[in-house]
């Protein structure tokens, strides 16, 4: 399989969030602002790529009965690393992400990739697979966060996009839509993304 095809397949065709329904919990909680979504996406990509690599390196020595615990320990190791890095270099963001950084451990995307890819593939392939799935996840996060931040706060990456003069308080006609800040809206947005994707990709329809 050529490289382009692999990318298309794991980022779109089997996107972890919209097709495989994995890792949704965090996708909902951290998408209020694009900045947090980006950081979370990067953290998951990092953890997923590296733990895929490590498990793949150890795949011949892990007894299959205790593999879940080994996998969890490897993932926790990288999550602790990511958590400490965030605390050191992006403290305010790590506060807003709160428990969701820790929850990367139980993010089923990572477990799923370890089980279905890292245990049976060579290190280089596993690394690429973990990386691409992380990117697929980050992509959905960023799309959802774009809509939520734009309509909910009128900003993108914290920069005001909608002119201040438009706001009702300043004599204009516009008001931010508070609904987009609420977590349920993220679910509805993902539902719409799934709808859109399945309308174009007939193979995915149920």
């Amino acid at each position, binding site marked *: 399989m050529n490289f382009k095809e692999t990318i298309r397949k794991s980022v779109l065709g089997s996107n972890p969030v*919209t097709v495989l329904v994995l890792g*949704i919990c965090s996708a909902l909680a951290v998408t209020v602002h694009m900045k947090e979504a980006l950081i979370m996406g990067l953290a998951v990509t990092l953890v997923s790529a590296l733990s895929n690599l490590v498990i793949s390196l150890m795949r011949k020595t892990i007894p299959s009965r205790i593999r879940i615990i080994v996998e969890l320990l490897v993932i926790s190791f990288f999550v*602790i690393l990511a958590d400490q890095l965030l605390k050191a270099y992006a403290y305010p963001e790590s506060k807003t992400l709160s428990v969701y950084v820790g*929850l990367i451990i139980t*993010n089923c995307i990572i477990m799923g990739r370890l089980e279905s890819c890292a245990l049976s593939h060579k290190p280089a392939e596993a690394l690429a697979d973990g990386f691409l799935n992380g990117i697929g996840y980050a992509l959905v996060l960023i799309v959802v966060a774009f809509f939520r931040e734009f309509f909910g706060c009128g900003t993108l990456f914290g920069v005001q996009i909608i002119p201040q003069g438009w706001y009702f308080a300043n004599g204009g006609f516009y008001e931010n839509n508070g609904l987009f800040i609420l977590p*349920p809206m993220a679910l509805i947005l993902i539902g719409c993304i799934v709808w859109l994707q399945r309308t174009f990709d007939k193979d995915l329809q*149920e």
Partner: protein
Amino acid sequence: MELINIFFKSVFVDNLALAFFLGMCSFIAVSKNMQTARGLGLAVILVLLVTLPLNWVLDRYVLAPGALKWISPALAGVDLSFLTFIVFVAVIAAVTQVVEMVVERFVPSLHLSLGIFLPLIAVNCAILGASLFMQERAYTGLGEVLAYALGSGLGWFLAIVSLAAIRERLRYSDIPKGLRGLGITFIVVGLMGLAFMGFMGIKF
């Protein structure tokens, strides 16, 4: 009174599934019919009731800053809180394994209905999430922790059973092709979440 307060708050206001959207993967994957939804819900309650007190004790006497003081005063400055994730996950994975074996041995009928769901729970973020929230909110006694565990377990159970009921009904409705299945489920869960927000601000 405080206990009842915590209990109701964790069932409705801080519902793990519909307010924090934890455990969503299995929430959506396993809610296709009533029976499996009930099985998974029960398993979550069971595991939460065992793991939360255990994690609380560990956090209080081993992990929190200065928690090792009870061994010797010289250890008062030790802060092991960076080990939280790894310890909590290990406890959860171990407890699920033990709970599965105990249930299999003593209540085989329950084991038949819970079956594959118990191992799945090891990676259900509702459990780890509840442990981390418990740590963040700093509950002061084992009683409060138990009330929180029971409340959040029941809340999750309630949520998944209601979603399963709605999805069973959805099968008879005429939905656009692309939206069928996964898409509409997301939107339904979103609407349920909005409905549950109505509980916010209620003080018991």
